[in-house]
């Protein structure tokens, strides 16, 4: 599956995400920070792509732009064949509802809801019936190994368990694109590893395009592709040797 050329689409499936010459600056007071400047990038479908780099280099900003949460100053973003810049905020919401999942560093779970309800909640807005929503929610919770604890509220869960519920919430929508920003940085080694395994499995078994920002070195082994960023530019684009468990493919 892995290809030597860093940024090209396969003949059959185009890139899930493509950014062309995107620029983004933040102005606070008189200070203008150019975070991204003419960045071009393609993310292949069904891969786990990792973006790493020093703090403040623009990783989260890039993620926000690629996921349609933030507008670009220049350039364009094409996600699953639609140009995000051409969509109004309502259409963007619709796009995200149908196609994207998010996992954040904070778990952002409603304190009042049980794990199962957290996962069910967005599904209702997708138009699923109560039964369908419950089915999908239990399935996703099972996938992240949270079935035994799905009736507990966030206050009764560990950090790792909360993050697994958050992943199940993103996963239950069956999105083509899954965005994760530092999903393991609030977790200890063991819990972090579990989350990494789950993200990896999602890309493998569901063919989901997973774009993950992290400077967790443990994640690198699991990624199909690692992009290193610095000062708003991509410095390197590598495909690390896959772990022994997956036999196919070679190091670039």
């Amino acid at each position: 599956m892995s290809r030597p050329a860093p940024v090209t689409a396969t003949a059959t499936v185009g890139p899930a995400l493509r950014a062309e010459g995107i620029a983004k600056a933040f102005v606070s007071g008189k200070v203008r920070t150019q975070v991204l400047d003419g960045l071009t990038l393609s993310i292949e479908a069904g891969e786990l792509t990792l973006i790493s780099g020093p703090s403040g280099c623009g990783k989260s900003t890039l993620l926000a732009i690629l996921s349609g949460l933030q507008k670009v100053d220049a350039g364009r973003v094409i996600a699953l064949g639609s140009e995000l810049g051409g969509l109004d905020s309502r259409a963007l919401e619709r796009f995200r509802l149908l196609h994207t999942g998010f996992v954040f560093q904070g778990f952002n779970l409603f304190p009042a809801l049980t794990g199962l309800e957290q996962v069910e909640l967005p599904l209702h807005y997708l138009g699923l019936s109560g039964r369908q929503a419950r089915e999908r929610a239990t399935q996703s919770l099972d996938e992240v190994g949270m079935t035994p604890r799905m009736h507990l509220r966030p206050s009764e869960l560990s950090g790792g368990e909360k993050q697994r519920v958050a992943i199940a919430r993103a996963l239950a929508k069956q999105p083509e694109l899954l965005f994760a920003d530092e999903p393991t940085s609030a977790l200890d080694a063991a819990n972090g590893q579990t989350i990494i395994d789950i993200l990896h499995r999602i890309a493998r078994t569901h063919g989901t395009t997973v774009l993950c920002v992290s400077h967790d070195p443990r994640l690198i082994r699991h990624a199909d592709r690692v992009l290193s960023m610095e000062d708003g530019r991509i410095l390197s684009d590598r495909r690390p040797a896959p772990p022994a468990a997956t036999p196919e493919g070679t190091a670039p």
Partner: protein
Amino acid sequence: MVALARKTLVYEWRRFLPAILAVGFAGLLQLLQAALVLGIFSSASVYITGSSADLWIGYPGTQSVSLGRPIDPDVEMRLRMDPAVARVEPFYWVDADWRGAHDTGGESVYVTGIDARADGLMFSQALPPALRERLAEPDAVIVDRADVDKLGVTVGDTAVINGHRVRVVGESSGLRALGGVNVVTSLDTARQLDNDPTDLGRPTYLLARLHDPAQADAVAARLRGDKGFGPYDVWTARTFARRSVLYWMLDTGAGAGVVFLAGIVFLVGAVITSQTLMAAVAGSVREYATLNALGVGVGNLRWVVLEQAFWVGAIGLLGATVLGFLLLVAARSQDVPVVLNIPITLLCVVLAMALAAVSGLVAMRSLRRADPASLLR
């Protein structure tokens, strides 16, 4: 559907408690002040509500029962000619001066001369037949229990009204007057007590009972048209009662006071409620932002906030209803004049829910901070 609004309210009830209390107390205050004002001013219409006439006939433009002027007694003939009218009786209103047995100084009283027969219409509800009978003696008067101290008399005492000696033969209850003291007499006694030469023994009002009370509006309209007998006007008991209460409310400024206070209560309630709801929304702003990132529209999130406001209002009102009921019962038992009717109660409910809704709309603005991009830093 996961009931996010309701579950959050139950789970974080402490956070919502100030809003619930604010709506509840605002509702309660509105209700109690309405009940009190209605209670006080309903005594302006006790002459009407305590009687069983369907129509009141009086001088045109009369704003309140206490402001009546004499009308032509021949109007009675006109009324009797109408086939819908079953019974007609006169009613005298005399503003008079009272001097008690013990020297308590002068007191201005409203002498109400009524048809004292057992089946008389006037004060048929307010005076039991046994008491009415006693008015048959010449110069007999009945005073209200609430005014006994003020008048300085007890049953059996004599007093002087407009220079005539009268004797107190009984005590009524619930005939407290606004801005004066009611003294009930028979028609004959009232005529004798009336010193005003211009009255010439003419009645202040005529009361009519209809065969079919449901026809009151139509009959009133029909009788009103006739110009053949001096000036008079016809009102249904309901209209005249309402008119009298309204007159007092507006004349004393109590109506404006009620509206003013209701406005203040509404404002204070809305400020507290909206602030509390805003804080609750702000407390969950990252979760709301996450939902928005996952594609749940801002409209849907706003709806959650509004639903929360609705529940806050409903719970607050429930508490207000229970507490209000207990307080009204307590007030009644202490002879505090409180009156509530369904339209006013409904109005208070609507006001409280409007307060909750306005607060919800204001609290929605906190959702602006639920920017999903801010979750990516």
